[in-house]
């Protein structure tokens, strides 16, 4: 008995060590990005396993070149989250709680939209945007970027809204609460976790967007940071410390959210299969 307990303990310790090694191996490229970002500037990539001294040249260059782009990414991402929530929350509520004709069809369409190749949408939007004067505009980017997140958010929040007990909504209606009130004061607060998860992913989807940034902006006036990195990479001489410093800055939302909102991120990863 005691020996089997000990064997189990040995095994779980061994598994933990293996798990840590696996993580170190898989996240090594991310560590390397941080390591290279604090090297002295230039096209040299050679570096020790650990930085011997911290150079901030890369960050200086990144901030000089990319701070406007980072702000653009931030604003577009926040606006895209707002647009996504405004459209997705009521739709999710309707799909979860009302009996509407064609509901199955709507759900099917939402699932299919997530499978349409982005280049198809970009190709068509470019000419429409050109006609409407939406190229190189914040509004144009926000509207297009929301296509990454709206169907995903609707399906995710709908699952959360389905968990809202019918009895609670019934009781509210009996007390005289209207359709909008029971939606606002009961369903939305109860679906809070799903809404938070959907918001975080909407933010990350837009923050990561590259294709719409690449195709729907044509001037330097409005460029998200993903496009800034792409431009860096296309230069004849790559200044690696600047590229890596910008990459670190562009990775911050993902890293921070993974650390502080782990519960929601994990729920989104397993709850809404998309990306």
């Amino acid at each position, binding site marked *: 008995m005691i020996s089997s307990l000990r064997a189990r303990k040995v*095994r*779980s310790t061994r*598994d*933990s060590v293996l798990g*840590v090694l696996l*993580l170190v191996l898989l996240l090594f*490229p*991310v560590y*390397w*990005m941080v390591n*290279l970002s604090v090297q002295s500037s230039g096209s040299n990539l050679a*570096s020790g396993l650990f930085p011997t001294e911290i150079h901030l040249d890369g960050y200086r260059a990144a901030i000089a070149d990319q701070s406007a782009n980072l702000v653009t990414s931030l604003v577009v991402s926040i606006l895209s989250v707002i647009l996504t929530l*405004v*459209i997705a929350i*009521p739709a999710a*509520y*309707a799909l979860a709680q*009302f*009996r*509407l004709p064609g*509901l199955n069809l709507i*759900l*099917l369409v*939402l*699932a299919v*939209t997530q*499978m*349409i190749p982005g*280049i*198809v*949408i*970009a*190709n*068509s*939007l*470019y000419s*429409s945007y*050109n006609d409407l004067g939406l190229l190189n505009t914040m509004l144009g980017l926000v509207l*297009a970027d*929301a296509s990454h997140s*709206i*169907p995903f958010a*609707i399906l995710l929040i*709908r*699952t959360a809204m389905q968990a809202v007990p019918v009895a609670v*909504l*019934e009781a509210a209606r009996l007390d005289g609460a209207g*359709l909008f009130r029971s939606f606002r004061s009961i369903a939305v607060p109860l679906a809070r976790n799903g809404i938070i998860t959907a918001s975080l992913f909407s933010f990350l989807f837009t923050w990561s967007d*590259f294709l719409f940034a*690449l195709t729907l902006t044509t001037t330097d006036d409005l460029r998200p940071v*993903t496009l800034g990195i*792409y431009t860096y*990479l296309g230069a004849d001489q790559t200044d690696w410390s600047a*590229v890596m410093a910008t*990459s670190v800055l562009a990775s911050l939302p993902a890293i921070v959210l*993974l650390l502080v909102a782990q519960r929601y991120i*994990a729920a989104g*990863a*397993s709850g809404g*299969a998309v990306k």
Partner: protein
Amino acid sequence: MTSVTTPTAQTVRRRPAREGRAPGRRRVSRERVYQWLFIAPALLYVVLFFAYPVVKNVVMGFQDYTTASFYTGEAPFVGFANYVTIFSDPTFWPSVTNTFVFTIGSIVGQFTLGLAIAVFFRRRFPLSTILRSLLLLPWLLPVIVSTALWRSLMDQDSGAINVVLKGLGIIDTGIPWLASPSIALLSVIIVNVWVGIPFNVAILYGGLQDIPEELYEAAAVDGASPWRTFWSVTWPLLRPTVTVVILLCVIYTLRSIDIILGLTRGGPANSTQTLPTASYFQSFQQFQFGLGAATSNVLIIIAFVFALLYLRASRRSLTD
């Protein structure tokens, strides 16, 4: 917890309607209108940003649509001329092959490694929850960031991979990971496997959670080896999840474009050109929007086949 959002089957178990306790036809119909108002913005968005672009892209595939069209407003219909042009382009069929090699290679790598890691994490050991969450990081990073950091790792002269391989005495001269037409596609696949592993782990781990613990206990009582347990218990019960995750990954890999543009821009010598990247170059570099539309319409047809398979599989996996 279900692992994948599969709306089609969930509606089967939808709860009964509860609108209109108090009858009165007028009240019900007014309420109906309000109900539609909840979903109207979403429907409008779907029409404008999904349905319309797809239809427009199909139409553009039959038009001579170039930059001139933007000024003149004219894009004459040319029948199948765009398709004749792209099919007779010597780079078209290689890009079709590349699309499939890239997709199959990525899926095989992501899935086998993802499954192995998911099975490993099923054992639940100290730190397993936190390690499993941190593992999601490569999937959450902007893909363009991942391409930047892998370009540094795969640099021929001073990239970390070649430095390590040289240090270990495995190679004498640096491998041109992204610079050689014969290796570049493999390198792109390796990076895409790295990006896709976390997603596979997350979904497969979710599927593993649904397998009853008693089955494993029974297998242990029977003295089954881990290998035998995997093939007799885990694999058969995980099959529905496996089908869904593979089809989803196929659909997302077929259309992926950031990773190739970031790493190689389709080069060297078109060796990593796929249908999405070819379409991008036709539309946004050569400004031949009609050709770009035709190329991406081929992609739509391929994606559509897999989308149908996915919808069928996800419905079956939940109703089983």
